[in-house]
């Protein structure tokens, strides 16, 4: 079964991207080289084709990440949590500045046991989520905090964005589940499913607390 899954992922990785490259490539050639012969509707159609191809590509990438997280062997090592969070934050710091999102880190020196790439992927997704759902707030703010308790570390990522109704709590961690319309908050519905899968594989867990309109906090429980 594992062999079949690997072969399936390989095929998705390779064979689904090639036709998309054709769709995007020829759309762009049409847009550039035949611009004068197209009217406004024609140009709009091409933009929509390209935007659909980009969305499909994101979906394929997210599915591949999800499938890799299921398949790859994880290496549990002792990690400096604060250092890892800061490295992940640094990747997005320009975007935080550009969007005017205030970022507050309250991270004492803590060592955790986790797979470095797996935990980085989790943090990236939670940060992306916090940024996405808070950027439309009047004074968008994201806070990352951590503390140790009873043999584990609890890390929280809070935002003051649109939040969600807790009746959807379990659903948001299921793959392809989205609570918001794609035109308001783009996404594929894979990010939080990937977070849950990664935390399960690292023997930790993830959950969230939220009130609609008053932001959301995502918690990670990470072994020490």
């Amino acid at each position, binding site marked *: 079964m594992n062999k079949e899954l690997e072969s399936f*992922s*390989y095929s998705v*990785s*390779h*064979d689904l*991207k*090639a*036709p*998309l*490259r*054709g769709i*995007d*490539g*020829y*759309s*762009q*050639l049409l847009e550039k080289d035949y611009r004068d012969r197209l009217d406004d509707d024609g140009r709009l159609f091409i933009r929509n084709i390209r935007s659909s*191809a*980009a969305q499909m*590509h994101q979906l394929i990438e997210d599915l*591949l990440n999800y499938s*890799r997280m299921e398949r*790859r062997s994880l290496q549990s090592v002792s990690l400096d949590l604060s250092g890892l969070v800061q490295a992940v934050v640094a990747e997005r710091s320009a975007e935080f500045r550009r969007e005017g999102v205030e970022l507050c880190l309250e991270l004492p020196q803590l060592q955790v046991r986790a797979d470095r790439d797996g935990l980085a992927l989790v943090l990236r997704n939670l940060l992306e989520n916090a940024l996405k759902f808070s950027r439309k707030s009047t004074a968008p703010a994201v806070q990352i905090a951590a503390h140790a308790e009873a043999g584990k570390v609890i890390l929280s990522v809070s935002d003051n964005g649109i939040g969600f109704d807790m009746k959807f709590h379990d659903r948001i961690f299921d793959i392809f589940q989205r609570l918001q319309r794609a035109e308001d908050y783009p996404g594929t519905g894979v990010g939080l499913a990937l977070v849950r899968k990664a935390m399960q594989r690292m023997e930790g867990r993830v959950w969230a607390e939220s009130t609609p309109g008053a932001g959301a906090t995502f918690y990670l429980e990470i072994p020490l």
Partner: protein
Amino acid sequence: MTTFNHPVLLVEDNPIDVDLTLRAFARRKFSNPINVARDGEEALAWLARWEAGEPLPLVIMLDLKLPRVHGLEVLAQLKEHPISRAIPVVVLTSSAEDQDIAAAYELGANSYIVKPVNFEKFLDVADQIELYWCVTNHPPR
């Protein structure tokens, strides 16, 4: 060293990818001739032609998932054969799978590039390949 009339070899089976790659290089005013091998066997058939005196390519751009002979097998044979083992091979593939990247480098790939889906990014990749492998880099004489 003048290298602008040396060929490059593109090993790619998908006709759309061949066409887009040729167009991407043409848009960047790339003047070196590009020979195309459409499967693994065609790629390996070049070994005999190089031995017979055809000019060696500056670089080989190699897809992995190829009909007849897989790209990794082509790479292994290119890196074993005395006529071709010093030619830089850039793996240019859709696959970003860890095992493909690791296997390609173990077999002697000189670079591994994941083909972007977005055409603007694909043009950037064509630029970078041309600038580095056909202008900056000095291949063995």
